[in-house]
């Protein structure tokens, strides 16, 4: 077990190294894409270009550039933005993390609860109109682009029906820190949470339903029924419990992907200054160090989430321990 854990850790470090190399190569070594031209701005003279290239170490060989960049990103942590001179990249990203986490954690609570309810109800009423209706709704949720759904939510709650009793409580777009005003924090985030969770409620509900239906045909369910346990208890205690292994795996991966950049569109639409919005703003100004930092931060988050999921999976389901 310990050996497997260490091997998995080593693998994680390798993948992270691979990701940092890929991200670096995309931004600094794509054929025809000269980063110094970006930093110097449009119509820069050759001398300026040379100067910029030298200042940022872009005239050195690629491996050296890579090492320098990683050193400034992780060791000295003094990488500065190309656009807003003097703005340090790492602290800016660190300040944005609580906002992204607030958004994703709240949405996660909603989608786990929603997914459980939808999946269990649909699985228990398999084949009925309730089941079909829920599955259709779930599919509809999966099919809407999240940024568009966010705009529709804004249209309804900020403009069209903002003056009615239903949505007059909705504050203007933006983030309120939890430590300053917990109730304001909740009010500011509840609409973004709902929008972000919509997709996942559909997804999780469908996956859970399929898994429950498969589980309910297993032998141990028949045994449980033969023991005289009530149908509700069989469903919730025996069927659901085994189905949750797949649920947990999916949750870990999706949570990691969302914290690592997947929430970008939601943050942009609702004006939340999280890591995704940071990436988006850096994207508008082509601020390469900022983009590199957010991309690498995000990838690491995803890799870590994968790692945690594997461990959890091994704890929850003993069969998975020797499979790898």
């Amino acid at each position, binding site marked *: 077990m310990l050996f497997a854990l260490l091997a998995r850790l080593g693998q994680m470090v390798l*993948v992270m190294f*691979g*990701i940092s190399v*890929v*991200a670096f190569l*995309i*931004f600094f070594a*794509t*054929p*025809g*894409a000269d980063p110094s*031209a*970006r930093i110097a701005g449009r119509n820069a003279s050759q001398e300026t270009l040379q100067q910029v290239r030298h200042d940022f170490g872009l005239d050195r060989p690629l491996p050296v550039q890579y090492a320098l960049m990683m050193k400034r990103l992780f060791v000295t942590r003094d990488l500065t933005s190309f656009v807003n001179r003097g703005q340090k990249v790492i602290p800016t990203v660190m300040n944005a993390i609580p906002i992204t986490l607030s958004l994703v954690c709240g949405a996660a609570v909603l989608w786990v609860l929603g997914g459980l309810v939808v999946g269990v109800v649909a699985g228990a009423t398999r084949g009925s109109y309730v089941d079909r209706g829920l599955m259709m709704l779930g*599919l*509809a949720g*999966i*099919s*809407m*682009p999240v*940024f*568009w*759904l966010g*705009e*529709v939510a*804004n*249209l309804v709650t*900020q*403009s*069209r029906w903002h003056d009615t009793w239903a949505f007059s409580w909705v504050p203007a777009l933006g983030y309120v820190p939890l430590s300053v005003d917990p109730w304001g924090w909740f009010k500011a985030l509840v609409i973004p949470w709902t929008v972000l969770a919509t*997709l996942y409620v559909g*997804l999780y509900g*469908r*996956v859970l339903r*399929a898994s429950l239906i498969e589980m309910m045909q297993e032998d141990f369910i028949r045994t449980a029924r033969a023991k005289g346990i009530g149908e509700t208890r069989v469903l919730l205690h025996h069927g659901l419990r085994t189905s949750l292994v797949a649920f947990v795996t999916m949750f870990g991966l999706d949570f990691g*992907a969302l914290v*690592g*950049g*997947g929430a*970008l*569109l939601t943050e*942009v639409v609702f004006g939340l200054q999280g890591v995704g919005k940071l*990436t*988006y703003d850096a*994207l508008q100004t*082509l601020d390469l160090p900022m*983009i590199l930092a*957010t*991309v690498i931060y*995000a*990838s690491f988050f*995803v*890799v870590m989430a*994968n790692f945690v999921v594997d461990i959890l999976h091994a704890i929850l389901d003993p069969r998975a321990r020797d499979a790898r």
Partner: protein
Amino acid sequence: MTDTTPPLPEKARAAEGPWATAWRRLKRDRAALAALAVLLVILAACLAAPLYATYVSGTNPFATNLNGTITVDGKSRDVLEASTEGLGLGLTPIGPTWQLGPYMLGADNQGRDVAARLLYGGRNSLFIAGAAAVLCLVVATFVGVVAGFFGGLVDTVLSRILDVLWAFPIFLLAISLSIVLISQPLLIGPFEIRSGSLALPIVIIGVVYIPYVARPIRNHVITLMKSEFVTAAVGLGASPWRILWVDILPNVVTRIIVFVPLMLALNMIIESALSFLSIGVQPPDASWGTIIQDGQGLLYSRPAVALAPGIAIAVTVLALNIFGDGVRDALDPKSTVRIG
């Protein structure tokens, strides 16, 4: 009740092939057939975009029309009217007329006909989704089959590369590639790709999903290689080439077909997201994502501009997902391909 007459002997008939079985199953799935019909209608409407622009809307959906006027209910109106909200400053594009004719869904803030742009944008959205799906499936099948079939070092190298790409958050990978590639023309050998070319979103979207398809195909090929009919073929002295073509590929094809509608749905969503972030389809071309972006500034005054393309995306993707479910159930009921 005693019925002692023996059953009539069935006519001997050739066993039904797998394709016929799948087709029979699909034909019984009414939801999937309805979804297919919706998809065909959307496709036909988008292909008819030039006809709509010429005969119905009568305006050029790619040219700004800031000073135009149209006649609605016998009254002449400016395409960009003086704003009636707030201080009355600025211009608001004309809203939907809801009549078959010019500006049925209103104008965007450059005075262009939204309905006509919607149809032209749909062409790009569908074309990019389709081309990216083809690219992704071809490359992923090649990589997956090669890795699974040859195994050993080839498999190790390919699998590790896929692992790294897989761990890269897909959305960020697409964004990173887009930023670098779209900001300036790209030279690959003798080919120059214009920065506004549709080829860029196609390649980017096609590439980022390769690991998601290649991995299951590789695993499937490895399972097939261990199956009894492959062992039998080896025992009969079949060459590796023949095993690949006769035993492996036909079994992989059904898996790939199951992926097609789901890939199209995923591609539509990611294309709209990239275009919305202005790193997908570049102006003057339109796609459903760029039109939503055009409509963002007009959201509270002229919501139709942003609502219409979003509804178009949602309906198309929903139909693709329903059809995809049907295809999967028909071809490969046991597979657990995940949407999303």
